[in-house]
């Protein structure tokens, strides 16, 4: 189903839409307040964007530098061309250690690669340890937001879900009780896990270390308890030097939730004695996106989720309506690069209001890229005949003054004199909930000509 259809379904429950909109708007407002407290916020954004642009222009060099330094630290580095190879690598590491239970902290990359079902099909239990991720995992749903994976669920729904899966008592959605039960449940999983998988927020080329940001400390808990730590990263996650963290860490949490910094910014540099640390660097379409000049800046993304929180469409259609691993504005410029046909409705799921581009901490010109994707899509993906014909005809009518004047007059005549049932028919999506403008006796052209005559 196209985004518009999914969104229409979501909008059947207006109270839920209002609730979803307000929950995310609240996060956006927290972000505003917190960004206001940083002097030179806009300079930070400029800087972050410039650093990312530098990384993307010199990616090959930084990647090799990172690999070399990580290896020096005793970390094993793997390269995966695509999702399949990524999954195989992760599985082979786990198989070597005969791992049966894995804990995983938040990683959109492993979502993108569908790692969980892959490992499960090889009889490995994967437990998502981020609370929101665990909630959607229990509900067998994908995350609906990259920072707040279960934002579409009310606490009452979580209550029911936990009763079913964790055997909790009914509590009217009491958040304190529910989180403490989740904590007990997860603690057990942490203790029994043989390996931990984490994502990577920033990989530092000149040290070979990497940083993982969480609010729950679940990445550390997993990585420190298990004997094997596998960190999976998209190849664009690099920054040149450790000092650049000073730019990105200040931007990331403020943009994401309005916190000055995530509760845990965990720096991993080398394995503890007797343990193993692996990094899997994944391409999976990123090189191709890098080669598209108009769209390469989409790889600046640090996955803060601010563009989702600010997007008036995302807030009112929910993350699942995008049918993509990464929903919202950034997903709508990334996904068409992966499968143009499947995701061809996404660049149109926007009014091009530009709020996403202005909120983005790394200044991705998201709305301009949405516009550009539209130009690509109408050429490469078959379009509804009516839409295409109407717009093509409009193109030639509007390029011709005389024809325009004729068509303009007759449409106004139609609008004024056609019976109401014809104008507000099923074919007229405008008229379902909105009135059409009342037609005046003359248009501006006619008025102006009359005025000239009387001068």
């Amino acid at each position: 189903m196209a985004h518009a259809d999914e969104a229409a379904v979501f909008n059947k429950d207006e109270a839920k839409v209002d609730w979803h909109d307000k929950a995310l708007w609240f996060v956006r407002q927290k972000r505003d307040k917190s960004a206001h407290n940083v002097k030179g916020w806009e300079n930070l954004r400029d800087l972050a964007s410039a650093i990312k642009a530098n990384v993307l222009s010199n990616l090959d060099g930084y990647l090799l530098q990172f690999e070399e330094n990580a290896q020096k630290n005793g970390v094993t580095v793997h390269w995966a061309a695509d999702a399949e190879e990524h999954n195989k690598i992760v599985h082979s590491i786990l198989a070597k250690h005969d791992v049966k239970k894995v804990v995983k902290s938040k990683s959109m990359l492993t979502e993108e690669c569908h790692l969980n079902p892959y490992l499960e099909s090889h009889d490995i239990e994967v437990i998502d340890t981020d609370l929101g991720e665990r909630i959607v995992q229990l509900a067998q749903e994908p995350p609906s937001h990259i920072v707040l994976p279960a934002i579409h669920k009310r606490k009452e729904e979580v209550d029911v879900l936990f009763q079913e899966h964790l055997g909790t008592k009914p509590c009217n959605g009491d958040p304190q009780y529910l989180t403490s039960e989740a904590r007990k449940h997860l603690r057990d999983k942490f203790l029994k896990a043989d390996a931990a998988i984490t994502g990577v927020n920033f990989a530092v080329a000149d040290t070979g270390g990497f940083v993982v940001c969480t609010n729950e400390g679940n990445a550390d808990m997993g990585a420190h308890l298990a004997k094997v730590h596998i960190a999976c990263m998209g190849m664009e996650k690099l920054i040149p030097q450790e000092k650049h963290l000073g730019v990105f860490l200040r931007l990331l949490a403020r943009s994401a939730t309005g916190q000055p910094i995530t509760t845990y910014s965990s720096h991993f540099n080398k394995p503890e004695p007797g343990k193993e640390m692996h990094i899997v660097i994944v391409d999976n379409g990123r090189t191709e996106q890098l080669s598209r000049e108009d769209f390469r800046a989409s790889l600046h993304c640090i996955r803060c989720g601010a563009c989702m929180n600010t997007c008036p469409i995302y807030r009112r259609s929910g993350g699942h309506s995008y049918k993509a691993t990464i929903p919202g504005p950034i997903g709508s410029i990334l996904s068409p690069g992966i499968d143009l046909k499947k995701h061809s409705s996404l660049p149109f799921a926007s009014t091009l209001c530009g709020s996403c581009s202005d909120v983005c901490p790394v200044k991705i010109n998201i709305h301009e890229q949405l516009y550009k994707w539209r130009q690509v899509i109408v050429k490469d993906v078959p379009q509804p005949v009516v839409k295409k014909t109407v717009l093509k005809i409009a193109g030639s009518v509007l390029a011709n003054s005389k024809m325009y004047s004729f068509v303009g007059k007759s449409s106004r005549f139609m609008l004024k004199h056609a019976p109401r049932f014809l104008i507000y028919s099923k074919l007229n999506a405008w008229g379902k909930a909105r009135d059409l403008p009342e037609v005046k006796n003359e248009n501006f052209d006619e008025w102006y000509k009359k005025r000239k005559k009387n001068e």
Partner: protein
Amino acid sequence: MKVGLFIPCYINQLYPQVGIATLEVLEKLGVEVVYPTGQTCCGQPLGNSGYEDDSKGICQLFVENFKEFDYIVGPSGSCVYHVKKHFDILEQTEEVIRVRKNTYELCQFIYEVLGKTDLGASFPYKVGIHKSCHGLRGLRLGSCSERMDDHYSTEESLLKEVKGLELKTLNRVDECCGFGGTFSVFEEAISVKMGKDRIQDHLDSDVEVVTGADHSCLMHLEGLINRNKQPLKVMHIAEILNSSI
């Protein structure tokens, strides 16, 4: 100074009163205004739908119509933005460059080029501004809530000088109304919901008249207001600046 009056197609056909107010405001300010009658559209509906290539003829005609003027002024932020931003699809001849550079949205022209704020208007009502996105984040008619720049607003600067007018502040000062051109029909459900939410914000903020510098958004809001018989009036900012009630 010779100004070419750019009246976007939908204003020409459906809202002649907005065109008239624009012309009269400019004339009051002592500007020589000419309306080139061969004009049609800026090509935006096509570009935003992905048919930019099919709009080249329209853009070229726009340049033809307006190339002889010192400034081109129109009462629609998004159309002006389209000329400035997306006429990059044409070969960048001297004429094209000049037209793109000298095209202004009405308020911006009054405030930035003429350096005026007080037009001697009076309008004794409670007014809420709808800051249309292409004007706000495209033309930067004002600071937007996402960026941490100092506050400014071209529309507010002009409206503050209108006698009797009481400017109301909204809860969400610059959220999109959901018009978005063809978005309004292809994403009907969300478009309508966004519009309804904007209107509610104006109602909650004790507004009597909703105004703005882009009549396409106002047309969408007005359609909803009229259908739902809500106690709000919609007027283009040119009509308020031209008013002497």
